[in-house]
């Protein structure tokens, strides 16, 4: 019996080691491999929180193992035995105090980062707005500046803060591009904001993070970051070579189902605003948007009178 327990312990630890070794390829851990300032700030916070937690976990585990071995109820164990000892103000102050300090430090960093992320990552570059609508079960991107639209992929210029504004014409989802930064919910009738920015060109994995039903698992998209010049070329290219997204076309698109990547040279005027309002956007004026200088939000707000 004991032999078997020993055996299981060994196989368990060797499995853990195997996992760590296979996991060494850092580029696979995309959350830990950010390609923009937002993801980088979040990674910094993650690292700080890991260090602060390790300060507690490692010593406590060590103390635990020591106590467990030292005070085992074995014949001949001559460790002190004090069955009545049950109180020590000093010790208690120490271990109420240490976590308080750690929480205070982490709290400050958390607050700072939270506030930072509500602003565009760089101030001196004019942001690009990309409107995102989650549908059953696909992602629609509309570009109010370029007047083009895409499905299941987005192209963005590098080094430029992107104001993603998010809504849903289906159950609520969550828009997540791990290498560029954290996610934000897309909700029917509401318009939310998320600042992201890519510093390096590349194709970045994106997905919906909040469950929306049958086709949810296939709601993945790619964000392609290219230079500003290539971005302009791309938009101009779409204008020439792609079909237009019509009202009827949107109607078809919003029916449940999965589709491949699509491109459109134009889309119906105010499509995004109408989607928000159609889903009951009477709460629009309450919406908190991370970018408060965005024209789109203000104009819609004034136009829409209930």
């Amino acid at each position, binding site marked *: 019996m004991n032999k078997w*327990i020993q055996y*299981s312990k060994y196989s*368990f630890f060797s499995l853990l080691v195997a996992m760590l070794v*296979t996991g060494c390829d850092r580029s*696979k851990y*995309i*959350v830990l491999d950010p390609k923009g300032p937002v993801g980088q700030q979040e990674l910094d916070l*993650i690292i700080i*929180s*890991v260090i602060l*937690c*390790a300060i507690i976990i490692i010593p406590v585990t060590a*103390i*635990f193992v020591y*106590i467990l071995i030292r*005070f085992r*109820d074995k014949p001949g164990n001559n460790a*002190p*035995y004090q*069955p*009545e*000892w*049950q*109180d*020590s103000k000093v010790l*208690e102050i120490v*271990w109420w105090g240490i*976590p308080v300090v750690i*929480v205070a430090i*982490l709290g400050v960093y*958390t*607050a700072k*980062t*939270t*506030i930072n*992320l509500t602003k565009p990552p760089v101030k001196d570059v004019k942001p690009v707005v990309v409107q995102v609508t989650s549908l059953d079960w696909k992602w629609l991107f509309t570009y109010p500046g370029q007047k083009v639209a895409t499905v299941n992929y987005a192209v963005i210029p590098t080094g430029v803060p992107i104001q993603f504004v998010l809504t849903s014409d*289906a*159950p*609520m989802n*969550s828009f*997540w591009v791990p290498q560029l*930064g*954290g*996610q934000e919910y897309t*909700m*029917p009738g*509401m318009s*939310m904001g998320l600042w992201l920015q890519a510093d390096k060109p590349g194709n970045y994995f994106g*997905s919906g*993070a*909040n*469950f929306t*039903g049958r086709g*949810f*698992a296939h709601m993945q998209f790619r964000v392609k970051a290219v230079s500003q010049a290539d971005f302009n070329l791309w938009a101009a290219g779409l204008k020439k070579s792609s079909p237009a997204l019509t009202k009827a076309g949107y109607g078809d698109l919003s029916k449940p189902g999965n589709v491949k990547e699509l491109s459109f040279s134009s889309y119906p005027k105010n499509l995004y605003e109408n989607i928000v309002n159609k*889903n*009951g956007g*009477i709460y629009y004026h309450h*919406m*908190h948007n991370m970018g408060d200088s965005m024209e789109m939000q203000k104009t819609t707000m004034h136009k829409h009178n209930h």
Partner: protein
Amino acid sequence: MNTSGFFVTGDPMIYGADVSIVLATVAIIASLTYLKKWGWLWKEWLTTVDHKKIGIMYLLSALLMLFRGGVDAILMRLQLAVPNNRFLASDHYNEIFTTHGTIMILFMAMPFMFALFNMVVPLQIGARDVAYPALNAISFWFFFIGAMLFNLSFVIGGSADSGWLAYPPLSEDQFSPGPGQNFWIWGIQISGIGSLATGINFIVTILKMRTPSMRLRDMPLFTWSVLSSSIAILGVFPILTVALIMLTIDRLFGGHFFTMDAGGNPMMWVNLIWMWGHPEVYIVVLPAFGVFSEVVATFSKKHIFGYASMVFSMIAIAVVSYYTWVHHFFTMGAGADVNIVFAICTMIIAIPTGVKVFNWLFTMYRGRIRLTQPMLWFCAFVPCFLVGGATGVMLAAAPADYQYHNSYFLIAHFHQVLIGGVVFGYLAGLYYWWPKLFGFKLNDRLGQWGFWLWQIGFYVCFMPQYALGFMGMTRRIYTYNQSAGWNMGWAPLNFISSVGAFIMGLGFIFQVWQILYSIKHGERDTTGDAWDGRTLEWSIPSPPPAYNFAVLPVVHGRDAWWHQKEEMRIEDYKPDPVKYEPIHMPKNTGIPFIMSCFFFVAGFGFTFEWYWMGIIGLIGVAITLFIRSFQYDTDFYIPVDEIERTEKDLRSHGSFHRTAT
């Protein structure tokens, strides 16, 4: 009445379930009839108001539901083991993760917890029953009926498939038509009312039913944990009830509480459900902390360290848990200020939790540690909960959570705290109090096998899931493609994780085997004090007589039984002569069971929107309540000679240390 699609069809696994349900039902009915046990079943179990029996029924149901939820888990892990797997279709997978979550929290953790409440609290505080014995039976039967109604959806009508917290608009009629979501609503609603009643029952029991000499500050820590957990229940279960009623109105009567279209707001649901849902996880973990406090003190042969601090931290957890719910949706566009407040509140709750770990460690310090089965589970809990707690603090840092939210990192975290904290804790409690309730210990060898398989399986299953979160894998996807599987590295880790799930399943099988084996061969306990315990429950025979304490115990300070034993060790110890008095006890009643059956009818009717049936059910509930309110003959006295006989029987067969003179 529309009966098309009444029975779930089209899946061989479902047909298998149909067959096994019918066979099991026939087998149960046949054997009860053959053994002429119907009367026994009715008199001893269905109508019982004895807290110990109710506890045992809770325990059995919880283990059964652990099996069902575990099978769900294994099916999911099978599906995700390799990319592009076609084992489960999307809809089926969605139903399975919804039922897995719902069952594990509401129909496994909650009844397991109530099993411990019922099995232990009255014994620890020197009481003969809970404050409201009939209400206690109602609570159990409501839970049981709710769980059965929910499980029925598996073969009749189809299960809910919008996640265990059913976010609108996905859970509304538009996106989830049909009875599945209604099953979820009514299953939880009925059992939730029972949970609320249990919370009230135990608050009153602990405050009013303690043996007169026991002050609040003498109470064992498990009892304190039950009190704080019950207070949290009292605070939040009404929120669940109301939220479910609102969703019912939306679904059945065309309301718009949670749709934007007519002025409602899905965010309102998300807030309400988490105002219940977050404290809920502390509700289930607090009693586990209580269990560990008892286990550590007993098996270190020492007083618990920092009793006052332990009590304070439990109350603090119960209170702060009300102010953390927003951390479940940091990414829903609340302002920075709101996110910061809830992030810090969430971190703060880690402080009292961490303090408890220190106190347990220093209870062991300068003690004499026996590594019995309950203690083993505690030892497994410490590192597991430390890591789980730490990842909880990581999740609490709002901007970092933008990256973890709804990813496998989150899945790994909450399984680590819920399995590492709640399941390990309850299993420790199960092993610890099993000899008290059943009069024998569970086999150690099989228990060790179960324990190590659980431990290995747990880490193999959930550690890769943290990594998967960092790889961008989100929860609730039923499949992933080759590219995500190999280029992004999801496949190998998912496969390892699935292996882990099977190992845990194997661990559970060993535990079931352990119980079945020990019923026959387990070490019998004739002393009533199987572990050299410290609290009052160990001062009476195992299993305890119906009235628990022949005479109400007199308590001087904490660890009452320990001190009494110290006194008895003094050579010229002479026990006080025991003078029995008739004991006032509640009578059995069939009302709770019958009322629950009517509630089942009501729930079933509303699930299928057959209002006539729903109304008949509710009328039945009202009539049983009415009848109960006119029952005056609800109690009786156990005469002195019967007590004498029982005590003599119980205390004659072994080395039982207290003799009545």
